[in-house]
């Protein structure tokens, strides 16, 4: 069944069609929401909210953009609104995120984990901009629109986020090397 048929059926409340759309797009939806939320439990709630909104809004989808783009924008908006609505965020000193990458190449798995770890520790505003720009490929104008700010502010936040990210990764690398030396074992140090 092609995507247009799936969408038509999903629009009519056909469960298997909605499930098929979920299977196809949930990793991308979950990824962007997880990174914005910086929390596994919240991410699941936010991602589900995004899906509910998308399925509810499906009759308004006119096919002017690709469905994946439309859905992605709903997911981003939904997560940003949810994060905004949260009165306080309690940063947890958690280990690496538990989310599972969709079949990452083995040699990149460690790198991805470190990046996710560092993303989780960025201040919220920086994290949002860095994710939207460097991970998701949004322009500064689009980010400004999504975050209710200017393109200039988005740029400024991005540069700071990149710098902070680099410091976090270097610190992580240093601490791992230190542990490695103490254990007398050699680990693969990732330094950018």
């Amino acid at each position, binding site marked *: 069944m092609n995507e247009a048929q799936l969408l038509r059926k*999903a629009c009519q*409340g056909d*469960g298997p069609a909605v499930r098929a759309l979920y299977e196809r797009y949930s*990793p991308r939806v*979950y*990824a962007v929401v997880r990174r914005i939320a910086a929390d596994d439990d919240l991410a*699941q709630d936010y991602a589900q909210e995004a899906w*509910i909104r998308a*399925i509810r809004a499906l009759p308004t989808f006119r096919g002017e953009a690709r469905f994946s783009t439309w859905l992605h924008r709903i997911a981003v908006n939904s997560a940003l609104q949810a994060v905004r609505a949260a009165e306080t965020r309690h940063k947890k000193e958690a280990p690496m995120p538990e989310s599972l990458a969709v079949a990452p190449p083995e040699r990149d798995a460690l790198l991805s984990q470190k990046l996710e770890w560092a993303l989780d520790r960025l201040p919220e505003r920086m994290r949002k901009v860095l994710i939207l720009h460097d991970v998701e490929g949004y322009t500064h104008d689009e980010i400004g629109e999504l975050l209710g700010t200017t393109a200039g502010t988005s740029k400024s936040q991005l540069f700071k986020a990149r710098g902070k990210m680099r410091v976090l990764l270097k610190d992580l690398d240093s601490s791992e090397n230190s542990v490695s030396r103490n254990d007398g074992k050699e680990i693969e140090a990732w330094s950018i």
Partner: protein
Amino acid sequence: MEHLTQDTLARLVDERPNPDERDHIKTCRRCAEALRAFRLQSEALGGLPALRPPPGDWESLEARLVSEGLVRTTETFRRFGFAAAPAWMQAAAAIVVFLGGTGFGLTLTNAATSDETPQSMSLPASQISSAEEAVRAVELAERAYMQSLARYRQWTGGSDGPRAADPLSLLTALEGLLAASQEAVRLAPADPVFNGFLVNVLAERQEVLRQISTSGDDVWF
């Protein structure tokens, strides 16, 4: 020239350097290395993989979609055990038969105005033996219900239409439909179609009751 700042290096990841910055990067190994590291970092971020949602995510989402009336699935019926519940099928079939067969259906159906009567859309209860057929029965019931309701409104509202029915006869018919709808909702509380039936029947019943209570000409007691 002093070393480039972190903000400048971060900017040069995707912007062209000015002549001074370009000259500095050419001669300063430290800044050149730092810029390379920034570029690698952004490249790595752009290559981050999608993430698989946690186990059980679909089941949880599906339950929400169903509870909000956004989807209806055969799995839903199975999970609630309706596929194996003759009582549920009887309730679903009761609506179908009631709408498409005798009683209310006969009263409301104006066969002369349509090629597709509720009778032709109904699925006999004896033919329902699986969840898929039950779903089909519900869909047919919904169509039949909406068609009958439209005729009901046309019949009772227009001066050109057939003679209006006695409100008490209508009320009696609606009570039967209400009982069937309530039973269906009791058995399938999350089903949007059954809930829709019930809401519509209650609204119609309320309207008939209002007609009866405000009719000064009809002393029915």
